[in-house]
C-alpha cells in the first residue's frame, strides 16, 4: 500500500505511486491528546492557517492562488480517534499531464503553497492577527451551534453527553463554544509551536508522481524541528462499571419526527482481538439493508424510514439510531430490543452472515477507490498492522461464526434509551 519513510522520530512520510487518479493528493496529520481546551485551540488554529499565509496574507489572495493552480484544493480539518485529537491538512491538485499546456507545474506549486502556509504562517510581531483569530473563533462557534439544526446528529450528541459526559466519546473535536471563546492569539501561537514541535506527524502523498524524488526532498519540504514527539497513550477503559440499570431519557424540541436512539457499551474496542467479530455482529444487527433492524423495524412494521446501528470501536460503543413517530416509541424500542435479543439467542441465519461478510468486504474494497479513502483507511488500520490489506481484513471476517456473533451480542450492555421529540407528542407521558 504505502511506502513508509521515517523522517525523524515521530515524523513519518507515507508515499504511494498510482495512476488510478487524475489528481495528486497530500495529507499531513498532527496527533495530540484530546481535551476540550486543546480541541478548541487546535480547531481555531486549523481555520487560521487555512485563511492566509506570510506569502498570501489575505484570504482572497490565497484563494486566487489556488484558483490559478486549476482549482487546487487546500483545507484543514480536525477530528478525533479514541483519546487522540487529529489535525489534518489536505491538498489535492490535478496531475498536469491531463491539462492542455499547463503554464505551471501544478502539484509542485501546491506543495510549496501548503508547506509555506504551515511553516511560514501569517504572523505579525510573532503572533497571529487578532482580527483573523476573532473571526475564525466566531466561525467555529457557529459551526458548533449548527449541530443543533441537524436533529439526527444532535440527538446522537446529546445521548453521548448523557452517558459519557466529559469523556473523549462525547467531546467535540472542535471544542465547546466556551473553550473556543477563551482562545487568544498568544494561546494560538503556543498551540502552533507545540503542534509543530511535539505532535506525532504522518504525511501522506499519493498519485502519479515521482515518489523517490519526493522522499529525497522530504527533509527540505518538511523541516520539522527535531524533538521529543510522544504518541498519545491509549485511553483508560471507560466501560460502565457496576450493574446500574440503563437510563431512559426523553427530551423535547420544536420538531415533528421523534429520534429514538440507544447506546450499548462493549468491552471490545478497535485493538481488541475480537474487533472483526464485533464488526460482523454490528452488520447483522443494523449496518445494512439486509440487517435485522432494517428488515423488522422498517420493512415489516413500517415504523421508520431509517433504523440502523453503528459500531464506534474507538469508544467501545454501539449506537442504534431511528427516526419514528414519537407515539410509536414503546413499540419501536421493544422491537429493537427483540433484535438484539435474537442475536443473543443465536437466531442468526447463514444467509445473514454471508450477506454481512459480502457487504463489509465490498465496502472496504470500494473505499480504496478514492485517494482520501486510501489515506484515511490506511491511517487507521496501520495502528493494527502496517502491512494490512483489505484481503487480510476480509479473511478475519470470513472466520467469524454464528457462535462468535452470538457471543459478541451477549457482551453488549444497554446504557441508555433516548428519545428527542416534538413538544406535542409528549403529552401522553
Amino acid at each position, binding site marked *: 500500500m504505502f511506502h513508509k519513510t521515517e523522517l525523524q522520530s515521530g515524523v513519518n512520510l507515507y508515499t504511494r505511486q498510482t495512476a488510478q487518479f487524475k489528481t495528486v493528493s497530500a495529507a499531513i496529520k498532527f496527533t495530540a491528546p484530546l481535551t476540550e481546551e486543546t480541541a478548541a485551540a487546535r480547531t481555531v488554529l486549523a481555520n487560521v492557517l487555512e485563511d492566509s499565509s506570510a506569502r498570501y496574507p489575505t484570504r482572497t489572495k490565497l484563494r486566487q492562488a489556488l484558483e490559478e493552480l486549476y482549482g487546487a484544493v487546500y483545507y484543514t480539518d480536525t477530528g478525533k480517534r479514541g483519546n487522540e485529537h487529529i489535525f489534518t491538512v489536505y491538498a489535492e491538485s490535478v496531475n498536469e499531464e491531463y491539462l492542455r499546456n499547463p503554464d505551471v507545474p501544478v502539484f509542485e506549486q501546491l506543495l510549496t503553497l501548503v508547506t509555506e502556509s504551515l511553516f511560514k504562517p501569517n504572523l505579525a510581531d510573532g503572533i497571529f492577527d487578532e482580527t483573523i483569530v476573532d473571526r475564525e473563533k466566531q*466561525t467555529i462557534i457557529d459551526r458548533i451551534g449548527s449541530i443543533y439544526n441537524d436533529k439526527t446528529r444532535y440527538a446522537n450528541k446529546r445521548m453521548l453527553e448523557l452517558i459519557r459526559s466529559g469523556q473523549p466519546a462525547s467531546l467535540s473535536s472542535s471544542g465547546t463554544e466556551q473553550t473556543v471563546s477563551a482562545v487568544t492569539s498568544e494561546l494560538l501561537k503556543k498551540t502552533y509551536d507545540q503542534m509543530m514541535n511535539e505532535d506525532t506527524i504522518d504525511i501522506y502523498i499519493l498519485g502519479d508522481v515521482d515518489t523517490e524524488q519526493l522522499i529525497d526532498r522530504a527533509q527540505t519540504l518538511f523541516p520539522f524541528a527535531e524533538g521529543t514527539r510522544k504518541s498519545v497513550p491509549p485511553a483508560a477503559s471507560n466501560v460502565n462499571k457496576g450493574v446500574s440499570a440503563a437510563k431512559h431519557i426523553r427530551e423535547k424540541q420544536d420538531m415533528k419526527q421523534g429520534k429514538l436512539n440507544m447506546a450499548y457499551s462493549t468491552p471490545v474496542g478497535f485493538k481488541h482481538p475480537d474487533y472483526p467479530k464485533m464488526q460482523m455482529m454490528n452488520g447483522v444487527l443494523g449496518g445494512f439493508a439486509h440487517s435485522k433492524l432494517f428488515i423488522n423495524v422498517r420493512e415489516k412494521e413500517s415504523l421508520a424510514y431509517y433504523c440502523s446501528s453503528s459500531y464506534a470501536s474507538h469508544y467501545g460503543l454501539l449506537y442504534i439510531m431511528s427516526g419514528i413517530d414519537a407515539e410509536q416509541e414503546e413499540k419501536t424500542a421493544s422491537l429493537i430490543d427483540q433484535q438484539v435479543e435474537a442475536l443473543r439467542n443465536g437466531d442468526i441465519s447463514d444467509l445473514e452472515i454471508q450477506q*454481512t461478510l459480502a457487504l463489509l468486504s465490498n465496502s472496504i474494497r470500494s473505499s480504496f477507490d478514492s485517494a482520501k479513502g486510501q489515506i484515511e483507511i490506511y491511517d487507521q488500520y496501520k495502528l493494527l498492522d502496517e502491512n494490512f490489506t483489505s484481503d487480510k481484513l476480509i479473511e478475519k471476517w470470513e472466520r467469524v461464526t454464528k457462535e462468535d456473533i452470538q457471543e459478541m451480542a451477549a457482551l453488549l450492555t444497554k446504557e441508555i434509551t433516548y428519545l428527542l421529540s416534538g413538544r406535542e407528542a409528549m403529552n401522553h407521558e
Partner: protein
Amino acid sequence: MNKIHFDQLQETLYHQKLDNGLNVYVLPKEGFSKTYVTFTTKYGSVDRTFIPRGGKELVTVPDGIAHFLEHKMFEKEDGDVFQQFSQNAAAANAFTSFTRTSYLFSSTSELYENTKTLLDFVQQPYFTEKTVEKEKGIIAQEITMYDDQADWRQYFGTIENLFENHPVRIDIAGTVETIQDITAEHLYECYETFYHPSNMVFFAVGNVDPEEMLKFVEQDQQAKSFESPEPVVRSFPSEPDYAAKKRSELYMDVSKPKLMIGTKCRNTDMSGKEMLIRELASDVTLDILFGRSSDFFTKAYNEGLIDESFSYEFNLENGFGFAAIGSDTEKPEELEKLIKSVFEDAKNNWSITDEQLERIRKKRIGLFMRALNSPEYIANQFTHYNFNEMNLFDVVPVLEGLTTDQLKSAFEDLYYEDGQTTMTIYPSEKSE
C-alpha cells in the same frame, strides 16, 4: 458499438443503442476495484401530467408518485431486492430528482449477477394494494424527517416562491397527505408510461470490460419482450417570468437565522450544446460574483454576514432553471441587501474581466478533472447531460471556449426585474 476516445482526459466511452431503444454506455476506469452501475429513467417529480401509454387524454397523478414508485420497485413477490444485492456483495440504492429516477448498485465482485438483478428488478414491476399501503408509513417518516431539516425546507421554500405553476415547486416526495391517494393502479400507469427502455439510460463505470458489458446488456434485453417505443407526452403549465412570491418566512428550531435568495432563470427552452454553454456560463458567473475569492465573499465573511454554511448553486433543466444563494446569518436583512447589490452592480455596470474569467475557467477545469476520479459523479452527471442531449465530456472544451459575452447573456436570463425571491427561516422560541 461506438467508441469515443477523449484524448485530453484519457478516457474512452463505449456506447450502443439497442433495438428496444435503450441507450447503453460503459466507461472503464483502470485501477478501480468497484464498478458503479446505474439504470435511469427520464421520469421525475415534475412529470405529473401526461398521456398514459395507450391512452389519449392527459391525466394528473398524485404528488410524490415518482418517488413512491422508486421505493416500491425494490419489493417483489418473493421478497426484497436488497437481499439479492447483499448476497452478491453489492450496495444498492436509488434516488428520485425533479427529472430522473435512478437505480444503482456498486460492487467489487459478481458484476454480472448484480447487473442482472438491476435490469430484472427495474423491468419487472410488482405492486399490490397491500404493499402500497405498507410503504405509506415508511415514506411518511421520510417526509417527516425532511420536515425537520431547515436547509431542505428553505431550499424548497425558495423554489416554491419562485414558481407559480410549474411542478418543480412541489416537494419531490409529496406530502404525508398526497401520498395517501396513491394506489397500485397509479403505480402501474406511471411505470408503463415512463419505464420503457427507450426512455431510459444504462451506464456502467469503473472496473468493467466494455465490450463484455455491452453484450451482456444486449442479450438480456433481447431475451425480454417490450412494446414498441412511443414518445412520452408530458404537459407543463405555462410559467410566467416573474417570481410567484417576493418573500416568505418560516419559524423553526434552528440556532440562528437562515437566508436564501432565489433567482429564476428565463428562456430555459433549450438543450444540447446551447444548454451546456448556458449552464457553464451561469456557474462561472456565479463563481466570479459569489465564490470564495470574490469581493462579495471577502466583505460578507469579514463583516460576519456569512459563515461556513454559505453556498450558491445553479440548476437548469429544459423548462425551468434557478439559482439559490444562502447562508446562516445573524443579520439576514444586511446580507439580503449585500447579495442584491452584487446582482444590481453586475446588471447596471457589467464589469467581469477576461482575467477573472481566465482564473475561474482554470479552477473549473481542475475541479472537473478531480470529479472524474469519482465513478458516482461521472454516472450521475453523465445521465443528467444525456437526457438533455448534452455530453459530459464536452465540459472541458466548452469551458475552454467560454467568452465574457456568454457570461453576460447567461446573467441577463438569470437576473432581471421581478425574477427574485427571499426566503428566511428565523429561530422559533427555544425549547425548554
